[in-house]
């Protein structure tokens, strides 16, 4: 997930760094209002938790490699979007500067993809879903799992966009790379959703008070939250559909006709990064949103089922609280 230096062009990195710096500054301001004097210890500790949790390896079935938690949505669910964004940014800064994991110049792009979109966007999806579903354990866990999957895919989509911008300048067409990236990250996202859901289910079974219930929002902010959530979902699903669209046009056409989307097809649904114009052109916007909603619904059903499965498995606890050696 970490973008190395040299993969993106310097101009793209600088642009992303400016945007990220503004987002981090805004998060800092909101955080000092929300958490007051608890901001430093809680956010610092959350960053340390995410950093340490990334060291826990999850074996992949039959493969010699293993995956790990990314943690953006987990941090945002526990402490809210502002602290979540800051915690992920801190992890990325320390990993880049002290452990040489991820680039220095591409730090801005990393913070934007994972911290800003991962935590802000992921939290918007989580909060919007939870607002609709209520506060039961299943609702909380499945909302967070959906948010985790979508945030990973949205980050991959953004990386493709940034990589496209960088390589466009040197006259190279990397659209084939995107297919690999997006398919790969759709799988990583499933792992992230599983881990986030399972960890949250565990925390809920022990200290449900640590996870705040959604508070009533003023209308403007509620609309903004739903808008952000929709944007993240659309970005993620557009990224997922774009490679299939470009590789298998006939298959997708057939499916869309079967499902009655033929009228939308005539508008030519935009491919994300089609010709490095604006990624989401206005005339095709509705088809992407619709696809986003459909895809999210499918993921959501899967997540509810998973949330139930996870809950069954965590009830007979095998790890006692006092496992200190």
């Amino acid at each position, binding site marked *: 997930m970490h973008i190395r230096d*040299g993969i993106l062009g310097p101009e793209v990195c600088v642009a992303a760094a400016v945007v990220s710096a503004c987002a981090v500054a805004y998060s800092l301001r909101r955080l000092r209002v929300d958490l007051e004097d608890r901001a430093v210890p809680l956010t610092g500790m959350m960053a340390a938790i995410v950093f340490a949790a990334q060291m826990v390896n999850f074996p992949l079935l039959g493969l010699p490699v293993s995956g790990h938690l990314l943690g953006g949505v987990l941090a945002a669910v526990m402490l809210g979007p502002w602290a979540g964004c800051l915690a992920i940014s801190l992890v990325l800064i320390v990993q880049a500067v002290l452990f040489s994991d991820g680039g220095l110049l591409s730090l801005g792009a990393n913070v934007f993809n994972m911290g800003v979109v991962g935590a802000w966007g992921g939290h918007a999806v989580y909060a919007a879903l939870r607002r609709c579903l209520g506060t039961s354990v299943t609702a909380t866990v499945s909302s967070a799992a959906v948010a985790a999957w979508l945030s990973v895919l949205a980050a991959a989509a953004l990386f493709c966009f940034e990589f496209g911008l960088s390589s466009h300048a040197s006259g190279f*067409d990397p659209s084939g790379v995107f297919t690999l990236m997006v398919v790969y990250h759709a799988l990583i996202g499933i792992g992230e959703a599983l881990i986030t859901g*399972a960890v949250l289910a565990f*925390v809920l079974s022990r200290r449900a008070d640590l996870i705040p219930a959604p508070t009533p929002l003023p209308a403007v902010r509620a609309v903004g939250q739903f808008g952000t959530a929709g944007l993240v979902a659309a970005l993620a699903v557009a990224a997922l559909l774009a490679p299939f669209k470009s590789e298998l046009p006939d298959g997708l056409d057939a499916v869309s006709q079967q499902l009655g989307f033929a009228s939308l097809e005539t508008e030519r649904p935009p491919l994300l990064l089609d010709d490095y114009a604006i990624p989401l052109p206005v005339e095709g916007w509705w088809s992407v949103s619709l696809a986003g909603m459909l895809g999210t619904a499918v993921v959501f059903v899967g997540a509810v089922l998973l949330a139930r499965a996870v809950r069954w498995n965590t009830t007979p606890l095998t*790890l006692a609280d006092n*496992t*200190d050696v």
Partner: protein
Amino acid sequence: MSDSCSPDAGATASDTSLCHGLPADAKLFLTLLVVVVSGLIPLEHWPAQGLLLVAVFMALSLAGVTVRYLARRLALFLPALFVFGLSIPVASAEGLAWNWALSLWLRCTVSFLAGLWLIHVLPLRELLSVLRRWHCPVVLIAMIGFMYRYVFILWDELRRLRSARDARDFGGASTWREWTISAQLIGLLLLRAMERAERTHRAMLARGWDGSIRSLDDDR
């Protein structure tokens, strides 16, 4: 800290070499300069990229980085980079694809080695004071310091939890079981760490913490 789950913690202040003597601002600035220049060198000027690579190698040897350390880091870094670069010519049959992949490998290696040099010569304390001088928000710097302090404590905690787990499951868990147990491990770590953060916060309040940061580095 010889455990496999904790990477080496970068520079220590006691190292003495030509590179360690540079001002901290210059270290960070030089590294960023190398990364930017290597990103800006176009495809057809690859000899310049090679020269940059040689220069970074010289800087690394001047800083006293051992070949063994370098080889260990590169052994972790190069395969992943190789696979990513290889996906470009595999995915598109264009003639430019191989050139693009090769220049990507070169650029990334130069930047990675420059980053290694930086972590070897710049301890965290110096980095934080550079960030202060560069007008980074003080709260952010305090958070970085706090996080760095607690990462090692949590690593130790994680190691204890892990050895407790390994002592109990006899290493024969199925993949699904291992996933749920690992998730519980993270959940337990999270609960303990949050409780620790609350305790720390109360201790800070008891010592007069009011949310503002003061540092002895202010006059430096």
